């Protein structure tokens, strides 16, 4: 990931998402109307979050196996950016919900799951700060990271689908994603948007990681 092409690709895709997402034609649907454009900003946040947190968990496992502090740094930075994506997803979702479901917080199963996921990762950061020793902090927080990830999967993917009164499409008897996703007009922006936002998130994380690495070398010398 040392090359620059993926950063340029991320920027180009996000610019394409913003211009295309706001200017191109979208299908007319009841209630949703023009707010369907939020699909390009709200939904990629969740894809990005899950990808970033998965990377964070993988580096946690790597740290447990190898014990190299740089894996711990990568793990925590990816978790941080994942949490930023979580917050942005919650905010964009709340704005969207305000106009389509009538209120910003409707107690929807996925909304609650995202909020709980946020609590889990805040707890992870609190845990990190309460440990002094560097190696111990790395090991204990990596263990919590993996453990929390294992507990998060049922939370994010299984529980909302079981909930009888979810408002999200595809859950609880509501029409699935295909209802409007099948429209290729949306698809040509939606898929690039996911890739673009995720790449931007990875770029942010890699900048933080490099800054930490520089700080660490400065402190060591």
């Amino acid at each position: 990931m040392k090359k620059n092409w993926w950063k340029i690709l991320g920027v180009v895709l996000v610019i394409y998402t913003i211009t295309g997402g706001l200017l191109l034609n979208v299908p007319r649907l009841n209630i949703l109307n023009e707010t369907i454009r939020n699909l390009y900003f709200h939904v990629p946040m969740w894809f990005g979050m899950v990808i970033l947190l998965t990377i964070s968990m993988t580096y946690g496992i790597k740290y447990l196996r190898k014990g190299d502090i740089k894996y711990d740094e990568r793990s925590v930075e990816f978790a941080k950016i994942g949490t930023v994506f979580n917050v942005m997803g919650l905010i964009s979702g709340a704005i969207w919900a305000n106009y389509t479901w009538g209120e910003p917080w409707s107690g929807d199963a996925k909304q609650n799951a995202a909020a709980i996921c946020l609590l889990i990762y805040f707890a992870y950061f609190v845990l990190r700060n309460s440990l002094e020793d560097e190696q111990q902090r790395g090991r204990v927080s990596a263990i919590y990271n993996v453990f929390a990830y294992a507990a998060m999967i049922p939370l994010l993917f299984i529980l909302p689908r079981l909930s009888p009164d979810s408002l999200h499409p595809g859950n609880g008897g509501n029409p699935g994603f295909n209802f409007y996703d099948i429209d290729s007009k949306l698809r040509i922006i939606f898929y690039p948007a996911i890739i673009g936002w995720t790449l931007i998130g990875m770029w942010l994380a890699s900048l933080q990681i490099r800054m930490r690495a520089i700080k660490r070398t400065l402190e060591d010398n």
Partner: protein
Amino acid sequence: MKKSQILTLIKKEFLSEWRQRYALNGMILYLASTIFVCYMSFGLKSGNIDTITWNALFWIIILFTAVNAVAKSFIQENDGRLLYYYSIARPESIIISKIIYNAILLLVLSLIGMLVYTLVMGNPIQDIGVYLLAVVLGALGFSSSLTMISGIASKASNSGSLMAVLSFPIILPLVLMVIRLSKNAMDGLDRSVSTDEILILVAINLLVGAASFLLFPYLWKS
């Protein structure tokens, strides 16, 4: 990992619990007084509360008792004794024995809790068998996730409050499923309605148990 080692460790947990009976009595008293505080503060006569609140309140009480009861499994062990275990037993045996022991402890506590709770708050449960199944699955799930979290929290300095912060969000899906299952039992719905919930509870328990089993050796080393 040997069976005999696990059995010896479980036996040792029971023995040390029995020798410090005040801790067990303290937990039962904690449970009873929490139930009584809820009962008094709601200002209820028995049967005056709707089933959703009855059920949720019961599980919140059990959750808090469980966090307090399991927190001591690593936090209260002193360093010398932990070092001794480290030298004689495999980490896998230790985590499994602690999980089994805590599950039995929580099961006993929640049954006592249920008894006291139904005594003062009334008993609107229609299908007692499924409700007891929910209690058993809940005790197993609480024990497998809380034991691991207690091990994690014991490494940090302010472990008491950290225990709650770390465990509550992780345990929430489990609590939600248990509440849903026990609500079905309270309403006396047909048992086939609850199979989904039971399967998911078993799956969550297995997932969390497996994660504890795999991760504990790394925690034990530090």
